[in-house]
């Protein structure tokens, strides 16, 4: 009894002492176990099962698989297509399950699940407390595609914006949304420009065929990478890299690839654009006037790829029926610096 009293007093005393000591530079409470790290979203197996999110701490010392499932003892759902972030929340979009699970991005505790108003949800962007989620609608119907407008305070879909078929990636610059219409199970070739003040399409920009990735550079311009139509379509077309000037909402400049070249996975890091073409990683200055001719890294057939702070994160889905891999390359030396085993079909790479 006495002993424990002493301990309590000691702790209290030390507590006061420690706090008073730190007064000047205020303590930063950790926001959760999953702060300061990388989140890898894996789609999960086809047909059944669940997607998972893996956490890797920034110093690579801590890794944990299936963090949502561990924390909540629940499944995220089938085909975790992407994750959207806003303030402390993360929005886990399960495409086949038609639901968005809202979690605290640092603790991964479930806040709520949104199921109403979604039909084949794909990607998320946020503007002024609203989430904008691209939806394919029914797979064989090209006329029912839309953007679901999610009220992030109530977590309800409050309206929809009908769009052309196959809306995929979506980014926001100020109050304007840029939606790449990759084309669902088919192919499309446009970017819809949507004003969030009116929730209406203000412009449709024609880009290359099959716009597969969007990214925003340091000057707040949007880059669109179009893969081109693949050869099996019988009308194979070239890949095109386009830059949308977000002041004028027009295409400032575009770069054509060869007809048989189908680039993918565009990202921007430190004023350089990175993309993958036929298993080779290319790097290009955002002010360059021609496409690069020599690759930085070769033989990297990734499932997704993101360059960030001098590191290239590339995922590999393997045989799509077992755990995948994440490869980290140092972009100053272009050498492999780390490898992690992820969940099944690793698709999303995010930084927490």
């Amino acid at each position, binding site marked *: 009894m006495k002993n424990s009293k002493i301990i309590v007093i000691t702790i209290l005393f030390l507590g006061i002492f420690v706090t008073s000591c730190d007064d000047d530079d205020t303590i930063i409470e950790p926001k959760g176990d999953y702060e300061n790290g990388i989140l890898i979203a894996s789609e999960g*197996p086809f*047909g*059944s*099962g*669940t997607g998972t999110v893996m956490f890797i701490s920034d110093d690579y010392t801590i890794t944990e698989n299936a963090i949502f499932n561990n924390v909540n003892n629940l*499944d*995220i*759902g*089938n085909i975790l297509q992407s994750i959207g972030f806003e303030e402390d929340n993360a929005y886990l979009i*399960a495409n*086949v*399950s*038609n639901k968005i699970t809202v979690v605290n991005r640092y603790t991964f505790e479930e806040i709520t699940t949104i199921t109403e108003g979604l039909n084949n949800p794909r990607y998320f962007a946020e503007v002024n407390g609203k989430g904008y989620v691209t939806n394919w609608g*029914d*797979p*064989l*119907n090209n006329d029912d595609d839309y953007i679901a407008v999610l009220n992030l305070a109530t977590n309800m879909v409050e309206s929809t914006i009908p769009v052309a078929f196959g809306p995929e990636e979506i980014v926001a610059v100020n109050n304007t949304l840029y939606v790449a219409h990759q084309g669902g199970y088919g192919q499309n070739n446009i970017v819809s420009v949507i004003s969030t003040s009116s929730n209406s399409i203000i412009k449709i920009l024609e880009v290359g065929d099959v716009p597969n990735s969007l990214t925003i550079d340091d000057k707040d311009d949007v880059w669109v990478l179009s893969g081109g139509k*693949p*050869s*099996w*379509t019988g009308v194979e077309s070239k890949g095109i890299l386009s830059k949308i000037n977000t002041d004028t909402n027009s295409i400032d400049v575009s770069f054509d690839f060869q007809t048989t070249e*189908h680039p*993918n996975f565009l990202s921007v890091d430190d004023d350089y654009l990175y993309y993958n073409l*036929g*298993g080779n990683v290319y790097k290009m200055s955002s002010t360059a006037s021609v496409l690069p001719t020599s690759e930085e890294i070769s033989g990297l*057939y990734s499932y997704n790829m993101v360059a960030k702070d001098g590191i290239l994160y590339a995922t590999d*889905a393997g*045989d*799509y*029926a*077992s*755990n995948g891999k994440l490869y980290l390359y140092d972009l100053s030396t272009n050498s492999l610096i780390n490898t992690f085993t992820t969940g*099944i079909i690793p698709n999303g790479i995010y930084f927490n």
Partner: protein
Amino acid sequence: MKQFSRFLFFLFLINNWSSYGQKDSIIALDIVVLSDVKLKNFSAGYNVNELLDSVIKTQTSLTDLLNLNTLIYFKENGYGMVSSPSFRGTNASQTAVIWNGINVNSQLTGQADFNNISIVNYNNISVKSGGSSVQYGSGAIGGSIHLNNSFHFYNHFNNELQVSYGSFNTLNTSYKLNIGTEKSYISAGVDYKKSENDYEYLGYAKKNRNGAYNFLGFNFNVGYFVNKNILLKLFHNSSLNDRNLSGTLTYNAKDAYENNDSKTLLVLDFLGEKFSSNLNLAHIYEDYKYFPNRENIDQYSYGKVTTFIVKYDASLYLKSHDLELKGILEYDGVNGTGSNIGANQRDVFSAVFLLNHKLTSKMDYNVNVRTEVTSQYNIPFIFSIGSNFQITKLYTLKFNTSKNYRIPTFNDLYWVPGGNTALKPENSYQFEIGNDFNFNSQKFNLTGYYIKSEDMIKWLPNTSNIWSPINIEEVESYGIEFQYKLLKKIGNNKLEFLTNYGYTISKNSRTNKQLIYVPKNKITGTVSYNCKNFSAYYQLLYNGSVYTTTDNYSNLSSYDVSDVGISYVVPNKRKLTTTITFKAQNIFNEKYQNVAYRPMPNRNYKLKLILNF
């Protein structure tokens, strides 16, 4: 009668082909029954298990029947949904379904959907373990399932009406008519089943919400002796199957799937004591429609295939040497169209030679070879050799070895995108040794096998990230199968016990990992008791744990499911026999899945009435 039986006796094999054949249900001598003769005569060294009519009657689906009575593992995408087998550790397209001697695996998928086959109209269902591509063509690698209609040439007129109703609003009805004389036979049947199939997902507070199904089947067979040497047979079977597709624990499905199937076979038998032959003409049609949203019936994808077969088969029987030789020439013309496969045709010509020789009264053997030429590739030479040695009265040693193949499907070849017309057929070599121990009331069989499959077709994303099939996998499967059967009769009491145990290793040769959805252990067991008009049974199914990912990182746990049934035959009132059966399945409410995230039904009941008149 006699005049016909003389010509038929060599078509009608005396049970030397099967370890546990139909000795238990010996057909009275004045009844002539014709069935798939090739299966019986040219299967020396193989295990062929015939499922008796009484066993078939306890089930309503081919999946359930085989799952509970054989060592085949079934992957069902929810109860009643698309169901695919793994036989001896092989994949779903390496089990062939043979309908009255014709391979009816889908030309689109290469596999049979075991929940799209009604069993009520077949009076003979046999399971042949091991490869028999020589006789039955593509896909007969792990084994083959034989659905046969037999012909009964004796005077009779029988009707059978079955009605059953059970849990989840499940209705099964069928009507069957059999009429026979010494010269002709007609059987006709119609069956209909439907179910809400909205069983509970035990432990999840969810239901199987999109699992309803609806099946209508027709069956029609005619046999007619034009004269004592010419027998004309017509077989027809067709079905319409309309299913919603069950979701998973993480997916509320709203899709639906429709299948139409039709099979018609005309056989002209020329019967002789020494030389006989037959001409077969078959027409097989299959189609499917897939609706991503069942409420929107205008939007669907589809595929349909028509197959036309001409087959001529000649046999020479040398009684003095107990030697039978058979040659078969066959042409298959396959035409497929569909949303994703364009319009394509495949022509296949094959030649088969079969030899069955009873060397001594204790030893017989088969040598079978096949060659095949198609519009896309050739199957140069396929063989099987098998033999039975009766070493003692109690013990028979069997062995067989064979080379088998599976040709690429229309989806593999022509699917847009990804279809690969440069695919080669898969091939497999196998070897098997079986031991039959036959005591009076007890029978054992212990069989070991080894299968090596090469050039197996697998769909993988290519360098342009398009899924495309390639001949890449190599798989080695081996295992042990044990069967024990006991039949005891004491006065009016009849007790039967049948159990199967299988140990299966099936490994990807490159990674050395067990294939997904192949349990290392499976047990089935049935105890049945019969006394006069009353019978009862208990059935157990145990499936060992299966891996669900190719790195063997995730698995499904093992499970055992128990069923019980009782049946009472109401004493005859003149010509009417009424049988009432009651069945309870999964009596211990086991929570189980045979495909990950797709729970199977909780405890459920079925009451059935059978009227024979």
